[in-house]
């Protein structure tokens, strides 16, 4: 049914943009999430303002930023503040509606590891660490994860829990008093996963065109729960593809 050829990345960008529908603020990193947010501003969320942990509120970058501290995010922004104020007054205050996060490992409750593979004190691979992710995961009203499905990433047990998701499931997050709502979605290259069940456990919710549930399960390191009804995500529209290719990522850096 693919009328126009598109890449996995384009599908992820289109999906990530759609789920921002009506959002007012999004906390965003560089790369694919940044493109998705800009696409959303052109489509489903015209009032969306981008917030970066570097201190930028309401960026209007004239190019795709090279990093979250790129000076193009400053020029033309609504407000640029110290990081203390960004984390305190925007994030911790609860003004971030949606935060986009990723990680090297994720578990069934949406907890993330960006710190180490192996033992913390003698790591096999030293990863970048938290950056702002730990407090973003705790304070944002909702978090959406964007991660490609890989068995080494969707693991039964994290090597290190950097950023809290639904912790051990159920109301364990609320019991610890974490102010934000926690993980709501995982946008992958094959399917959309949600946490809409009392256990707050990741479940297969929507499959992309041409993908089977077993293709997803094959890349997940635990028996993946299925939603009551599993939908099919629509392929990128020609308008979405045009916007991605002509407007938000004309150089194709993230395709």
């Amino acid at each position, binding site marked *: 049914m693919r009328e126009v050829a598109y890449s996995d990345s384009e599908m992820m960008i289109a999906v990530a943009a759609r789920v921002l529908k009506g959002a*007012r*603020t999004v906390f965003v990193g560089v790369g694919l999430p940044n493109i998705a947010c800009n696409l959303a501003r052109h489509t489903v969320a015209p*009032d969306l*303002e981008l917030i970066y942990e570097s201190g*930028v*509120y*309401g960026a*209007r970058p*004239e*190019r795709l930023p090279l990093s979250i501290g*790129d*000076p*193009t995010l*400053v*020029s*033309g*922004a*609504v*407000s*640029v503040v110290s990081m203390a*104020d960004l984390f*305190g*007054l925007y994030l*911790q*205050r*609860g*003004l971030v509606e949606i935060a986009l996060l990723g990680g090297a490992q994720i578990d069934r409750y949406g907890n993330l590891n960006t710190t180490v593979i192996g033992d913390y004190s003698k790591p096999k691979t030293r990863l970048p660490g938290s950056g702002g992710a730990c407090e973003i995961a705790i*304070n944002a009203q909702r978090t959406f994860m964007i991660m490609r499905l890989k068995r080494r990433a969707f693991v039964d047990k994290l090597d290190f829990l950097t950023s809290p998701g639904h912790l051990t499931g159920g109301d364990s997050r609320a019991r610890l008093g974490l*102010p934000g709502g926690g993980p709501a979605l995982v946008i992958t290259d094959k399917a959309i996963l949600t946490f809409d069940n009392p256990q707050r456990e990741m479940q297969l919710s929507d499959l992309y065109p041409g993908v089977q549930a077993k293709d997803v399960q094959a890349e997940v390191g635990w028996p993946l729960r299925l939603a009551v009804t599993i939908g099919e995500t629509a392929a990128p529209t020609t308008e979405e593809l045009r916007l991605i290719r002509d407007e938000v990522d004309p150089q194709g850096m993230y395709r």
Partner: protein
Amino acid sequence: MNNSAKANKLVSMQDAIATYVSDNFSVAIEGFTGFICFAAGHEIIRQRRRNLTLIRMTPDLIYDQMIAAGTASKLIFSYMGNPGVGSLYCIRRAVEKAIPCPLELEEYSHYGLVGRYAAGASRLPFFALRSYIGSDMLAANPLIKLIDDPYGTGKIAVVPPLNPDVAILHAQRADAKGNTQLWGLLGMQKEIAFAAKHVIVVIEELVDESMIRADPNRTLIPGLIVDAVVHEPYGAHPSYVQGYYDRDNESYLAWDKLSQDHAAVLAWLDEWVYGLENHAAYVRKHGQAHFDKLKPEPLLAPSVDYGRHR
């Protein structure tokens, strides 16, 4: 913050107060010595609000007037004086003699009240500061507590967060979305704006969004947290707005005399508040020449180059 996404939040002062300031609310009209929105205070008097909790570090003349008018039952503050002049006699009459009604006081030092705003602004359970130890203020206000430093250096004072129902802030300029720029004394305006449940911004000049985006480091309050924008030139008179008009010191000195008599205050309120429809009428009654005398000579900051990084 239900209005945060509205592209045009411009309303009249009358509408802003009618919508966002109700009886029994906690209200902070802030700005240290300058940027004090008298126009908002007068409209609250005019709309005869009652039983307000008024919050301001330095109550200044505006709260003296509002308390004399009977709008408030409680005052949260840190310094109660007519700055550089003397006493606030209306507030003293309320405290010492319950005229026109009793006034409960809740009292901090400056840094303590700034800290309450800062904790409220960042959803923290408290703000720690090196103050109060050894002072009777600890006993006078049980909300101020001492805790042990978990790293073993001893006791430290803390104050709880403060989140007023509404904050009213005056500034030089904003766009119609409420993105607000302010220069001069930054005071506590940022903290109280982020702490409040609703924010009314009152401005000297309405500018295009592009003007705001041309100097993002100058934006103190984002439209994201602003509910209403009121374009009210001279709205901070007789206090001042940096670069726009100076303090009308004659008014401050005159109030020092006039306010010693409650009847004289009521007559003043009749003439300057109840007797006028709005702030524009107040400006007309003073006459433009009055404000022209308060205008400082220009002193322009040099520009800076943000660069088109593309």
